[in-house]
């Protein structure tokens, strides 16, 4: 009989372990994406001074998209610019709440090709914050970034895309459940 008990408790532990493993996949996935640049995920704010700035010229394309049903106006000042590796650059984005209700939004960046994502350093970015806008309010926010001189030689242009999400409802539920 006790051998049966032993089997059951081992298998039960394995079940619990695999349940936890399912959740562990979330951070594993994030780490994996960061290493491989999968999905063009971009890391948090970094600031670096480069000794050897390389002096290559890179073309940057800026795109903005509104997620399904998001009514705000959202665009960058320019859609393209040429930058030098290792130098600080500035671009600015306009957000307008076109509705008659206060709303909260969050812009999520993505860099392509994915392989270049880890060389796209943002030193100041609205993507680290949520935007709260009153009805009709409009703001312009700067984005500061540096392109790493180590950017692989086969990449001569990068695209930075932002998708704007309406997270008003999520913020409400979060506050409600706190």
């Amino acid at each position, binding site marked *: 009989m006790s051998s049966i008990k032993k089997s059951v408790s081992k298998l039960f532990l394995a079940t619990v372990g695999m349940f936890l493993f*399912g959740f562990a996949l979330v951070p594993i996935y994030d780490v994996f994406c960061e290493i491989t640049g999968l999905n063009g995920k971009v890391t948090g704010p970094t600031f670096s001074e480069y000794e050897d700035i390389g002096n290559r010229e890179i073309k940057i394309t800026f795109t903005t998209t509104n997620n399904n049903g998001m009514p705000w106006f959202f665009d960058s000042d320019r859609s393209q610019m040429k930058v030098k590796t290792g130098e600080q650059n500035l671009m600015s984005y306009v957000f307008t709440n076109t509705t008659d209700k206060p709303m909260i939004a969050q812009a999520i960046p993505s860099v392509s090709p994915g392989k270049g994502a880890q060389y796209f350093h943002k030193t100041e970015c609205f993507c680290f914050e949520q935007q709260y806008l009153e009805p009709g309010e409009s703001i312009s926010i700067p984005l500061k970034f540096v392109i790493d001189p180590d950017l692989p030689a086969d990449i001569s242009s990068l695209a930075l895309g932002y998708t704007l999400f309406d997270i008003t409802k*999520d913020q409400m539920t979060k506050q409600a459940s706190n």
Partner: protein
Amino acid sequence: MSAVIEGHQDDHHHGPAKGITRWLYTTNHKDIGSLYLWFSFIMLFIGGAMAMVIRAELFEPGSQIVSPEFYNQMVTNHGLIMVFGVIMPAFVGLANWLIPMQIGAPDMALPRLNNLSFWILPAAFGVLLATFFMEGGAPNFGWTFYAPLSTEYAPPTVTYFIFAVHIMGASSIMGSINVITTILNMRAPGMTLMKMPLFVWSWLITAYLLIAVMPVLAGAVTMMLMDIHFGTSFFKAGGGGDPVLFQHIFWFFGHPEVYIMILPAFGIVSHIIETFSRKPIFGYDSMVYAIASIALLSFVVWAHHMFTVGMPIAGELFFMYSTMLIAIPTGVKVFNWLSTMFKGSLTFETPMLFAIAFVALFTIGGLSGLMLAIAPADFQYHDTYFVVAHFHYVLVPGALFSIIAAVYYWLPKWTGYMYDEFMGKTHFWLSFVSVNLTFFPMHFVGLAGMPRRIPDYAMQFADYNMIVSVGAFLFGLSQLLFLYVVLKAIFYGKKATGQVWEGAQGLEWTLDSPPAYHTFETPPNLEAGEAKG
């Protein structure tokens, strides 16, 4: 030797309780096996009815009889029911009936848990089906329930769906713990692992797969629940999560899951082919190793379902080659079945017909799988009817045919009555023709670009779709004939002998037909010459 067993049973003979309580409270593996099998049979007709609605809608292009919203609910619930309500419970039912008898054990190791595993299953499907009558309608996001379709854009009933999936998962996990514990601890003396019947082997490995991946599925639906109700952002891009993560987690479960639905079939077909070839299975050891390696490989191929999400090239290549690797052990099995039949004294009773059809048609599904495994080609095939053709070939003339074959093969043992051979063969030929009529043309429309999961389609696909629908109606009707054959055997069948099939090997055939309510209360003596299965 069987006389010794029966003599012993008479000492403490007690039969089943009477009435409905027999079924509610039963802890007997044979009763529970029957419950699972009947449950699965009923769900087959419910899921089948949904397939008929789908095929009626697709009979002609244009919007015919149901709304697109209801069509999506049909597709979703058809898939969920067939996977979790038909194929899996049927295999668990077979495991309950057969494993104790094949290893010479008196019952399953955990009989009360066994009762619970079964009875929560009708509850889960009751909840799922009840969503049809709730506000917002039943789940409509496909059986793969990709986020955000199943989170941000889901009908409110998604919460009931999550609850139902949790219960189904719990049922499978408890069932698997029971199977493994039984096999590891309760084999008759002398039955070493490498002497176990192949059905037992296939279920042992399947149960490990279930324990490895059902909890991950439970985790995935729990994350959905939290995203929907508690403001977390596992899969919400707006909150820093990632919908692609859902697909990784789902397919980490999902791919082993598709092997869960085929490994027991490998065991069944091996038994049937050796019986009607009157030869022991060719390459027993390699059969075991093939099942084990398929199971191990199934953990590293999941992203072949997501070639198009935008993976790095190294990822595409890894998942492409690892997927192709699975074809090797699968091929080993197919060749072993063919070698078993080679120069055997073959007869073609109904179970054998279904088993041979399994080998042939499952292989077609494996070949289309190989085509899908080629990443660049999959960019074209993905989300078309070609994928639908692929997985229906492995699941219908694959998994389902193996279950039907098993029912024909063991029904005389379970009930003590033979089925009508002529009717059985009629059922086979109708099923064989109609299953190909249904699923083969799907390859063509898929390659021509017809997307899956749509209620309407372009004119150029009309002819093939009409053929497919006719085949589907015929296949549906043929399964009513199956029900008739089973009922006829139970009520009017001729008495079956204990041996039933001339060439059958294995402990279950040493018992009477039907076997006593309690069997092998003292283990059989294998050294005294009982062969392995």
